[in-house]
């Protein structure tokens, strides 16, 4: 059983394909209180949490210095995955709330792999797209309710 087998965005890949991704991965340890990702910085990698707790947060534009927590991520969660599709700066920061072990996968290496094995690219991109779709649908719905509540 491959460790990457449990990661949603790699669903549908076989063991050999998972191993080829695993070969690209750089293991990293983030201590409590350290940032894994900083908002507005360039994103060149995606991260897979192996163990620990990471909080996703953004700067509060109204109250400088304060942050707004968005989500808590745990083992097997993926972060920084939007960077696979585009070169925009990171949309949020990720802060370790406990000692956290991650696998860092450099975007450039992953794309090289996808170029060689298009099927892998197709499967992974579809999985990624599905998770982004889900997030977009719920954000759209929330925004719509917000707009209505404010009287548009």
């Amino acid at each position, binding site marked *: 059983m491959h460790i990457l087998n449990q990661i949603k965005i790699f669903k549908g890949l076989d063991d050999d394909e998972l191993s080829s991704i695993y070969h690209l991965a750089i293991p990293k340890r983030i201590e409590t209180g350290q940032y894994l990702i900083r908002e507005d910085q360039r994103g060149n990698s995606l991260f897979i949490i192996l163990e620990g707790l990471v909080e996703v947060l953004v700067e509060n*534009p109204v109250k400088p210095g304060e942050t*707004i927590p968005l989500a808590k991520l745990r083992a097997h969660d993926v972060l920084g995955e939007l960077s696979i599709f585009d070169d*925009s700066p990171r*949309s949020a920061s990720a802060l370790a709330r406990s000692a956290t072990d991650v696998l860092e996968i450099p975007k450039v290496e992953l794309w090289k792999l996808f170029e060689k094995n298009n099927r892998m*690219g197709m499967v992974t*991109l*579809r999985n990624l797209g599905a998770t982004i779709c889900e997030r977009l649908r719920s*954000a759209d719905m*929330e925004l719509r309710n917000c*707009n209505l509540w404010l009287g548009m």
Partner: protein
Amino acid sequence: MHFLSHINIFDGLEDQELSQILALGKESRLKPQEYIFKEYGPGDRFYILKEGQIEITVHNPVNPPPIVLATLAPTEVFGEFCLFDDAPRSATAKATQPSLILEILKKDVFALFQKETRIGMVILQNLGTVLCKRLRNTDKNLRNHLLWSELNTPLP
């Protein structure tokens, strides 16, 4: 020059690949006010507008007139998120002028992707890029709204 080469989700495909996609499509003519799909309906195909105008709306839970999200012009694609998931349609699409659309079934697209994985990878990458942009925008808008409403809520 291929008709589909103007469409951003097909960016990076060659003419021969575009022809394979075009071969999957079926054209339909629509009268003004004719619905193509409705919010919460099943999503088993996506569409390319060739001629005319399509309006994308969502139901307004507070007041009867629906909320207009977008007005589409020729070469725009809609209903394409069904390529990622099986969720119901998130909006309604209706012709506002006599229109000509090309519809492509999801199952046919995936059958093509299985054979031609490069086509699949390129299209899913393009679609994903569009999605990311929309997600980043929506998230930002949502966050601003929440902050704005928080600032304007009187303290208890």
